[in-house]
């Protein structure tokens, strides 16, 4: 299938926060309650549509365990987007965000769009991190924020798509060099570059991103 753009994503965050489940829910629309520990990195892909443009998302789901940290670092540079995931029922996963973010900022290109995700929003009774805390962290560090549930699929689609919208917006603002594949962006086979430049549309996107009232 042909596409206008190809974006590379990585999913990062502590072990057991639901990174692989988020990917599985996004690519296969199913939830696997018992998931093996990810060894190294796993790959998944899906096509999405933004502003009538087909965008192929290639997603590398990384292992959260400390021992794989050095391996996962190799994926930062070539990614256009990162989903930084914590578990709303485990505060320590939230506390580790700073260290993940430092790692990401250090090894990625400066334009990488980072989406902060508080996963497991279905487990409201066991909540340990308030939504407001997540929002505050995101605001402080200039991230997009969403709470999701890989189990109920709530906001999962939105998380991936809103990240893509933000990348698309940055492309249209000329912040990304689409010809340098090291940025994690590739123009589709039959795509001309003239399709970029559309400030009105990009502003629209920007507004869309903020309003993720959703179900969570």
């Amino acid at each position, binding site marked *: 299938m042909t596409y206008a753009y190809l974006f590379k994503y990585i999913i990062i965050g502590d072990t057991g926060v639901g990174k692989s489940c988020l990917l599985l829910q996004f690519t296969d629309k199913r939830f696997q309650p018992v998931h093996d520990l990810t060894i*190294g*990195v796993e*790959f998944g892909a899906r096509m999405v549509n933004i502003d009538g443009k087909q965008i192929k998302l290639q997603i590398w789901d990384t292992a959260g365990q400390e021992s794989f940290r050095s391996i996962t670092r*190799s994926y930062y540079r070539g990614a256009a987007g990162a989903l930084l995931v914590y578990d709303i029922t485990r505060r320590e996963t939230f506390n580790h965000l700073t260290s993940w973010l430092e790692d990401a900022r250090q*090894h990625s290109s400066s334009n990488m769009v980072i989406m902060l995700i508080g996963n497991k929003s279905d487990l409201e009774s066991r909540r340990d991190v308030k939504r407001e805390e997540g929002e505050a962290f995101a605001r402080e560090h200039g991230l997009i924020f969403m709470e999701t549930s890989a189990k109920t699929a709530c906001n999962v689609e939105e998380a991936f798509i809103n990240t893509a919208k933000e990348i698309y917006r940055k492309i249209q603002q000329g912040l990304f060099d689409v010809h340098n*594949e090291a940025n994690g962006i590739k123009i589709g086979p039959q795509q001309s570059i003239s399709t970029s430049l559309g400030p009105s549309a990009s502003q629209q996107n920007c507004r869309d991103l903020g309003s993720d009232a959703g179900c969570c």
Partner: protein
Amino acid sequence: MNFLRGVMGGQSAGPQHTEAETHQNEDRIFKKNILEIQMNQKTTLKGLGISDSEIIGYALDTLYNIISNDEEEEVGKFPLILLCFYEFDFHVRWPGVKLLTSLLKQLGPQVQQIILVSPMGVSRLMDLLADSREVIRNDGVLLLQALTRSNGAIQKIVAFENAFERLLDIITEEGNSDGGIVVEDCLILLQNLLKNNNSNQNFFKEGSYIQRMKPWFEVGDENSGWSAQKVTNLHLMLQLVRVLVSPTNPPGATSSCQKAMFQCGLLQQLCTILMATGVPADILTETINTVSEVIRGCQVNQDYFASVNAPSNPPRPAIVVLLMSMVNERQPFVLRCAVLYCFQCFLYKNQKGQGEIVSTLLPSTIDATGNSVSAGQLLCGGLFSTDSLSNWCAAVALAHALQENATQKEQLLRVQLATSIGNPPVSLLQQCTNILSQGSKIQTRVGLLMLLCTWLSNCPIAVTHFLHNSANVPFLTGQIAENLGEEEQLVQGLCALLLGISIYFNDNSLESYMKEKLKQLIEKRIGKENFIEKLGFISKHELYSRASQKPQPNFPSPEYMIFDHEFTKLVKELEGVITKAIYKSSEEDKKEEEVKKTLEQHDNIVTHYKNMIREQDLQLEELKQQISTLKCQNEQLQTAVTQQASQIQQQKDQYNLLKVQLGKDNQHQGPYNNGAQMNGIQPEEISRLREEIEELKSNRELLQTQLAEKDSLIENLKSSQTASDMNEQSSTKDSEQITELKQELATLKSQLNSQSVEITRLHTEKHELLQKMETKSIPVQGENESIIASKTTDVEGRLSALLQETKELKNEVKALSEERTAIKEQLDSSNSTIAILQNEKDKLQLEVADSKKEQDDLLVLLADQDQKILSLKNKLKDLGHPIEEEDELESGDQDDEDDENEDGIKDQDHI
């Protein structure tokens, strides 16, 4: 070593530590050297001249020479070497690449681990593929080959760093299979990245790179020559395709790649090579193997393959052409194996294909002209040829046409073979057992026994057919019981399996070979233990496990061609159950039989019900659809009905009203009799208006009579100026009447107004109704239409009549209001007359009062004079003079007056 790591900021890994400690001395010496190099390196990095780079280059080269034979020291230097990939200078980079490649080749896992944990380590090395200097790029490919060898994590990072794109670009630039050794190196690297790496395979597929493989196989038919390099390249390319569709991959992954290969035309391209001429045998063989795996278990691809024709005259199906090679002794062994694999893959999970192959053997479909060779004919030919390899291949191929397909097992029983002239035809089954009993080569007998075992398993009818030949059971028992040499053990085992199948799948339809009897026979002739031991020979055979590993028939030489992969599965499945069946006592057997029967019955019932449920499901589905369509229709109809009902109700209402109206109309208006229906509101209004008009009329009459009364009253007043009392009374009455009249007039006026308003409203309503009638006449269906049409005309007629009526009534009202104005004028004039009269009356009253006064005065005078007269008379009398009573002074009139006056006086006296 740790020092060196420190320089790079790399982490130290445990195992290397111990190594380092054991070689501390060498390490120390080494450190000195490296330190110096490192100093140079640093200054170079700060941008010093070429000469420094050259020095470093030579130094690295020296280093390479020193350490290339010393495995233990490599690890420590390693991160330093990564530094030289920041340096673009050729003299630094190239030896650096060579050094690292050498390190990787000798200390693979350790070096891989260090690169993996070095920040940007892999990314740096990936940059080599983009180096403009071909030497570095090409050596970079070799470095990456060594780097990615059996390390999944690095393979994934390399893939993430766009290795597929870069390598495919290089292959294209170099001219695909016509390219040199660089293409070969790239293909090996691609294989490293993809083999047994599901994540990378998925990425490769999702990245649409399969499509980019297609041009690799656009190999011209012309004899452009097949260089050794080209053959190698093409071989690697074919293997790369096979990596993506390997039967050992996860099923979902393989099938999605298979689909992609069909969709992008890769399979079609491979089939072109398959049918082309002049293709080297090993390429052809590998192409057949590749096509096999691209179609295996994928119905679309299998269907396509069945449709491929060889460009011969007349065109023959590719399958037939390939089978010809399989049963041809002169073809290379590997090619014949490849064809068998291809045929197996074509039939794998392909009931349609199995049916097609078997059907070419059936009497009804065999081509009587004998012009074209069919697959079935080739297989039979192979089965009974003198070449044992052909026998084996044909038997296995035929067994694959029966795999998990009960229908074809039964169909194959119908196959009859013509033997020598004059003899009756023999069934295929009979012929197989005949050849088996003739004691041919082991390969032939193994092949036939595998075919028979596959054929008879799960097929009681075939078992019955087999047992029906009275020679078969004695042959089998004889084979099993005999004490033969080691080479015959496998055949004995297979015979035991076949006999076991004949017991296990026996439906007891043959009296002489019922389960129980066969078991007794085993016990008597062979012995249970012996039988089981012989059965066990199969899976204990050295070639058995080899064949069970993967589907491809891959034998080093023809002698090893003994087991078929699918057959090993059958053995695994049956060995246990047959052993159990043999050991079971007859009672247990009976019990089991009963249980089995009941189970079967249950099964039958269940299948019966299942079928019923399936049918009912279908029916249900159909009915559901019908219901939904009917519901839909019903809804539509219901809305139509309600619409029509309301229309009809409206019309009925109108009709009734009009009827009532008509009844009323008939009383005063003859011409409108015929109207039957009318607008619901209008007639009501009209009748009300009529009533009002009636009322007004009566009012008018009343007023007129009142007026007449007043007129007469005025007359009375005029005539009776004297009777003032009466006058006064009438005048008050008059004023009362006038106010009444005024009120009445006001009410009349308002009535008139409301009437005129109503009339206009009626007009508009009438208009609307007329329009409605017009529109209504469309949706009304069928018979209603004509009625309504006639009704409409009626109604229209009535409407116009009513309009006329209304007009007339209006005119009447107008006339009435004119009359009323006239009456008002009359009233005004009478009022003024009344006022005049009043004035006159007042005057008269004044006059009356005056005259009364005069009269009183006169009466006083009269009384005085009377007194005088009386006194005078009395004087006269006194004087003696007679007095006359009558006095000449008074007149008759005066007398009357006098009388009256006398009364008045009297009254006054009293007062």
